[in-house]
């Protein structure tokens, strides 16, 4: 079980109010991702749930039990830290055994769980090494192993992949995803990378300055961003935001069109522009189009085979039903 409910939780450091009253429900077995720009309070929120920070007011309930005043070790949660936080003087085996040793699990059971975790995480050959002798990805797996053996109600991940290189990050993303499918345990994952959020989450919580901007499944957020912030934060490349007369034509203050929802043609279309940088990725081509009179730059995603280059004049046409409209407050107009 691992249902976590935040009820009017706030956090202040001195006079600085980091998290204004916040409500959030995380259901059992869900993979929830907290995403937002640096300093938006997502790590603080995770540390509040973990118990590493005290809540200023409000309640945290884990499986229906009020855990607001419980110390971290009594909440039944396991955490994987950004720096892995392995114990450098202990072997991998002792690192993984540490939480069980503290809980007084008997030796035979310890060994069984260590072996299971090591097998699941491909660590069997490294059990007698020290963290200093392992690569980044292996350390990450040890940190996950140390979390697994506790059989926690929920896993908390604090930007676990940000210290890995791009290739490893993709691999570990898959491993964590598979782990969630196998264990079916609640996981809360903090990241500033919207790609990680989109690929792994059942539910994404977008945060800005401690305030939840939107909660929903990745596709909900992609299809129906509640406001301009979510619209520009979710999706890569970023959504094009257009203001002024063109927006007014659609009865909005701002309209947003995703790069993949604009078709490009060398001969005819709604908006005329000139191609700046063209990024040919093979599968896709990203064009940065200037001089449209709409915004500084409009980003377009087109097929990989398209034969347009720097300096070409092009015509752009947005897909009519994929235009997002936002009002003066930046909120979505239905």
């Amino acid at each position, binding site marked *: 079980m691992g249902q976590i409910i935040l009820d009017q939780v706030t956090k202040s450091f001195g006079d600085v109010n980091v998290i204004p009253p916040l409500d959030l429900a995380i259901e059992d077995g869900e993979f929830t991702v907290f995403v937002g720009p640096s300093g938006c309070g997502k790590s603080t929120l995770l540390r509040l749930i973990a118990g590493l920070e005290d809540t200023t007011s409000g309640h945290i309930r884990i499986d229906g039990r009020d855990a607001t005043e419980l110390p971290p070790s009594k909440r039944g949660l396991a955490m994987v830290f950004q720096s892995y936080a392995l114990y450098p*003087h202990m072997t991998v085996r002792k690192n993984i055994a540490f939480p069980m040793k503290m809980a007084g699990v008997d030796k035979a059971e310890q060994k069984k769980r260590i072996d299971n975790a090591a097998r699941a995480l491909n660590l069997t050959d490294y059990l007698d090494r020290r963290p200093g002798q392992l690569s980044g990805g292996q350390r990450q797996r040890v940190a996950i192993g140390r979390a697994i053996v506790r059989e926690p109600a929920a896993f908390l991940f604090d930007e676990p992949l940000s210290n890995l290189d791009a290739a490893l990050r993709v691999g570990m993303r898959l491993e964590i995803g598979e782990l969630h499918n196998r264990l079916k345990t609640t996981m809360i994952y903090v990241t500033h990378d919207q790609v990680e959020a989109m690929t792994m989450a059942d539910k994404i919580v977008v945060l800005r300055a401690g305030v939840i901007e939107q909660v929903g499944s990745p596709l909900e957020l992609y299809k129906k961003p509640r406001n301009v912030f979510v619209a520009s934060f979710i999706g890569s490349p970023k959504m094009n935001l257009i203001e002024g007369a063109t927006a007014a034509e659609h009865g909005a203050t701002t309209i947003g069109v995703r790069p993949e929802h604009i078709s490009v043609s060398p001969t005819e279309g709604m908006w005329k522009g000139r191609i700046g940088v063209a990024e040919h990725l093979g599968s896709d081509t990203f064009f940065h189009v200037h001089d449209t009179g709409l915004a500084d730059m409009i980003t377009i995603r087109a097929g990989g085979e398209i034969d347009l280059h720097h300096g070409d004049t092009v015509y752009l046409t947005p897909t009519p039903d994929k235009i997002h409209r936002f009002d003066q407050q930046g909120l979505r107009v239905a």
Partner: protein
Amino acid sequence: MATQHSKTAARWMISPAVIMLLAWMIIPLSLTLYFSFLRYNLLMPGTNPFVGFENYEYFFTDPGFQAALINTILLVVGVLIITVVGGIAFAILLDQPIKGQGIVRILVIAPFFVMPTVSALVWKNMFMNPVSGIFGHMAKSIGLAPFDFLSQAPLASIIGIVSWQWLPFATLILLTAMQSLDQEQLEAAEMDGASWWSRFWYIMLPHLSRAITVVILIQTIFLLSIFAEILVTTNGGPGTASTNLTYLIYAQSLLQYDVGLGSAGGVVAIILANIVAIFLMRMIGKNLDA
């Protein structure tokens, strides 16, 4: 480019410094060694005949020798225990966020800047003196007889004074080590259900082990040659109760004007210090690798 030629040139260039250093060390050492084999007493000038190991025989059979050896060990070990344990405690306390942290840290480090002679005199006259010392006043104010530290527990008193001087050093080194401990490790241990004591034992102490090694190594070297504190407080007494090897050598060579005997003591002290150094390096120097 290090050609054969430039290497030779480099050797020529560096040799004055090396020769200077060698002379600096070798000449006093060999003179001491030479004097230790002579009957060389300043009260009987004139002949300095070669007497072989006679001086060494006198030194080893001196009634004070055994006591001095034991006192030296007690002094070194006692101060090490107090400063390392106290240093760890202070380092953990000073690592906590408190108001006026900077001032507190400077205050803690202050004793290290006081000269040994001065601090020993302050302790002797203002704290431990049964008539004018604070401890004596405190004892009297609660109706107890003042305790005469320096005559009734001379060695323990000196251990106390020396510990007071060296505690800041240990604290300083251990505090910097403490500050380099990754906070996430402590948080991870907290999540893992470790009590404060377990976190101290399994995380902090192993992290500090290297710094503790440094403290023990450096302090041992200095503590073997404690002298000023003994000279100004107890003069090695009563009897030989607070005489260590350094003080014994001083007492024999200078107080008895016997250069030969003092030199023999010096050579013995060098040999003993080297034995200790080798053992220390073997035992805990391993900690410094990797």
